[in-house]
């Protein structure tokens, strides 16, 4: 085939191909937009449920809060924040193993989730596993750019171990990081 012929064929087939391409792009655009909207809708629902759950939790209705946070998890299983908050609520209810599962689920989605590691450490401490808690909380300190609360938790671990020298160091570090703005 000569170059001129090729050019002719291309120009001949061009309106149909362009149309097909346009339809394809439109379809893609519509589908991805729909997906994005659906995703946003799902995330929005989870966020709203989580907001209500947090309000209930702060009022002291822990069981109801756990129920709603569980619904938030179901509404958007890819949202790590729901698992994290659910973990803290379960922790308050004394359901340590369930809390650990929730924190681990949050960390699976977002390994950098800065409060989930601290939550897991607290759950281990509450279970009586101070050594396990120490390891997890030290790891959390590496992840956490706002470490005051993690230092506080680690201080609790050392108090439990009767290691007051280390406890003092951790609490002081918590205060220092808070004052320097690394809350």
């Amino acid at each position, binding site marked *: 085939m000569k170059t001129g012929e090729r050019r002719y064929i291309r120009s001949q087939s061009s309106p149909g191909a362009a149309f097909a391409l346009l339809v394809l792009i439109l379809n893609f655009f519509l589908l991805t937009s729909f997906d994005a909207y659906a995703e946003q809708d799902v995330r929005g629902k989870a966020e709203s449920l989580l907001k209500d759950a947090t309000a209930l939790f702060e009022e002291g209705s822990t069981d109801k809060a756990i129920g709603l946070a569980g619904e938030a998890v179901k509404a958007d299983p890819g949202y790590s924040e729901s698992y994290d908050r659910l973990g*803290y609520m379960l922790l308050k209810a004394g359901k340590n193993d369930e809390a650990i599962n929730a924190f681990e689920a949050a960390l699976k989605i977002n390994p950098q989730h800065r409060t989930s590691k601290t939550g897991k450490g607290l759950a281990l401490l509450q279970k*009586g596993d101070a050594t396990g808690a120490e390891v997890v909380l030290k790891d959390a300190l590496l992840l956490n750019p706002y470490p005051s*609360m993690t230092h506080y938790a680690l201080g*609790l671990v050392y108090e439990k171990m009767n290691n007051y020298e280390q406890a*003092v160091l951790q609490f002081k570090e918590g*205060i220092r990081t808070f004052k320097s703005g690394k809350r």
Partner: protein
Amino acid sequence: MRHNLEKVKTFAMQAVLAVVGAVIIFFASTATARALLQMGAPAPEFSLKDLDGKDVNPAQFSANKGVVVLFWATWSSNSPKALRKFEAFYRKYKERGIQVIGINADNQAISSGDLEKVKKLAQELDITFPLLLDKGLKTFHDFSIIALPSTIVISEGKISYELAGLPLVGTEDMFDFLLALAGDPPRKKPEPEYMPRHDAIADAGLARGFVKKKRYGTAYPLFRKAIEKDPRFILAYVELARLCETEGKNAEAEDVLKKALLAAPENVVAQSELGYLMTKAGRLKDAIDLLDKAAKVDSYPPSHYYLAYAFGVSGQLKEALNAFDQAVSLNPYEPEIYLLRAEVYEKNNMLKESSADYRKALELILKIKG
């Protein structure tokens, strides 16, 4: 052994439960510095629930000549006395334009047990003015309260009087002020009242905003401008000194406070802050003399814990702990008390006690509640 293990487990459980309920609210570290130096400043706005769940705010009483806000707690030994005094005053002067509001500060998180105690005391004392509940102690912090009980008088939207604790002389002066506000002749001739210049208050307010945003360079000249406009405006000196201290310029901070004392030699806030800086610089004898003088006036609670700290640093542990206890009984929500006591314990190698106090300070700073 088993008993000990259970005890340890219970402690861990309580501590963890406390952190689970943590709510972190950032608050200004200069709250203590502002205390007792707020006259003329706009009163912070608030709206709180009374014991029946109704919302109450001072704006409801804007037609009044003055609104007295009494911060109190059931555990504070002087609070029932203060409530009684204000109830008697309220019954006599409510028709003359003086409104009294009591704000309870029993706890950061008010439990049903706390609420019962508040209601019981209100009933016992037959309190008829509104008693409000300060959830999270936000209003307590907004007003820079440093002791319980504490009284703030608001007139025309501004703070016109403030009193920490219930000192003998100070309380009489405050009631004289209230009598004059209600239109009665005071029991003794009042001293001419000093009110800072408005433009100086505005400059200091702006500077405070920049401090909060950590724009220290912009804050310095504004504080200095406030002082230039009103050399008797001690708050500007104290906040400027705090800023210098934050940036490690302790000698400069001392100079600022010395200038404040030249303008107002008997000002206990400036005396106390200077005494604290002198303690940190190791000039313990001078510091203790100055702080002792300020603490005897008994109108600025930090003077007690600064004095306690100075005693502690100079090796007088027993005196230090007594003075710290007194400071805690006035305001158990002040993290600085626990921080300084922790440091004293640490110096004395009492690490268990030191750890408990650092923990308590951090809990208060992070607003950790159970």
